[in-house]
């Protein structure tokens, strides 16, 4: 069990650094404010329909072992 914990702790920062470098190096040309009308559409945001997300994430976290990833502060319930 202890070894697994260490692996968990070790894996996360490595993954973060890798991703950060990918994000940092993606030499995307700067998108100007007047070019953001498509990005402003609700379906282009990551919190599109939060009530749908809360039902869906909860169903999955109560029927599968994995949970979380998108946010913090999800309260507990007796379902898992």
């Amino acid at each position, binding site marked *: 069990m202890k070894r697994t914990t260490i692996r968990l702790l070790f894996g996360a920062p490595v993954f973060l650094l890798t991703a950060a470098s990918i994000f940092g190096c993606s030499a995307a040309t700067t998108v100007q404010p007047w070019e953001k009308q498509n990005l402003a559409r609700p379906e282009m945001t990551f919190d599109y*329909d939060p009530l749908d997300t*809360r039902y869906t994430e909860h*169903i999955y976290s109560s029927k599968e*072992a994995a949970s979380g*990833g998108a946010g913090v502060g999800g*309260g*507990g*319930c007796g379902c898992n």
Partner: protein
Amino acid sequence: MMGTALLTAAMALPAVDFALAESAPEKTKVSFKYLNYSESQYTPGIHSSTSGGSDDNETHHHAVIVDLVSGASTTTTSGSGTGAVSSDRIKVNAYTVSALVPIEGKWSVGLNYTYDSVSGASPQYHTSALTTMRDQRNAGDISVTRYFSRSSLTFGGSYSTESDYLSRGASLMGSFSSEDRNTTWSFGASLSDDSITPQLAGIGNKSKSIVAGLVGVTKVLTKNDIAQFNIGYSHGTGYYSDPYKANDNRPDRRNSATALARWNHHFEDSDGTARLGYRFYSDTFGIKAHTLDAEYIQPVGSGFDLAPLLRLYTQNEAEFYIATNSPAETSPTPVPAGQAYSSEDQRLSAFGALTVGLKITKKVSEDLLFDVKYESYHQRSDWALSGKKDTGLAQFNVQSIQVGMTCLF
């Protein structure tokens, strides 16, 4: 009637989701959503073949689900003389009301209330010995956000009660954007404290505490692409066992790590939007899981949007998971001598899962929106991409429908 809330599919309190939110909303938003959820399990009977399995523990199972308790409706079909068995499990009806109120352009307050009723049958071990249960849940949460020119700070609190479970939580989240607002860094931290009072003699009161943290970056890549990457870590201690299941004795500590990548792309030609996500999950129970999400939202005129969705999931089993011992088991598998921890919970077995769904949204006006969503979920041990498949488990299925409305004032 046992109040086996620990087995239920009651609605959890929401997580404060990472999003770009450096400006207060302009209007008050009020939403309502109803969920109808129903589970079933299915054993196809004698397999004609179990080809493809490379593991030698694959067994041909003669399907009989032992339904010890009345109340779980079970139907036996005799298609091809195989004796397939299908049983209903849990049903949930949930109602959520939500409001987001802007205050003086610099603050917003979010309020949510959820009521749900849960009833049906849940297995005492594996997919056997279905036992009826019924429970209700009331949950509320509040969040307060302060907006600054290029950043925001959110504090949240949550509370939830069931007949045998009480949860309290607090969270803090912040976000900071670059000057061009094309990059946003986010962080979040949360605490939860749960009290568990199993309605069984001799167990006593239990508790569980979880501390979690998350960091993420959201980046505008082009005028039609936005991507997000989050890393999360959670440390939990306390009572993780399920007192209503046989031979369930889990470690009193569970740490988990997640990595989530999301990418939304808008197609100018079709005016449609693709939403893609991948999550990696790993925990100290020894479970690793991969989740792929895809959704495509297509406007079709008259204010209607059609959105088909697909989700793929796989996990391996927990280190202490104990598999079924016979094709048609009538008792739990004995715990091997000397094994400290054990569980015969299907949710800790190795499996793969598939969800297909369709959502229809109708925008009546700029301030009024209706939506309906149907999803069909299928979970099978045969579909696990890693781990040791427990082929004695029944297939698990869920059908769900959501109906929602959003108004802006």
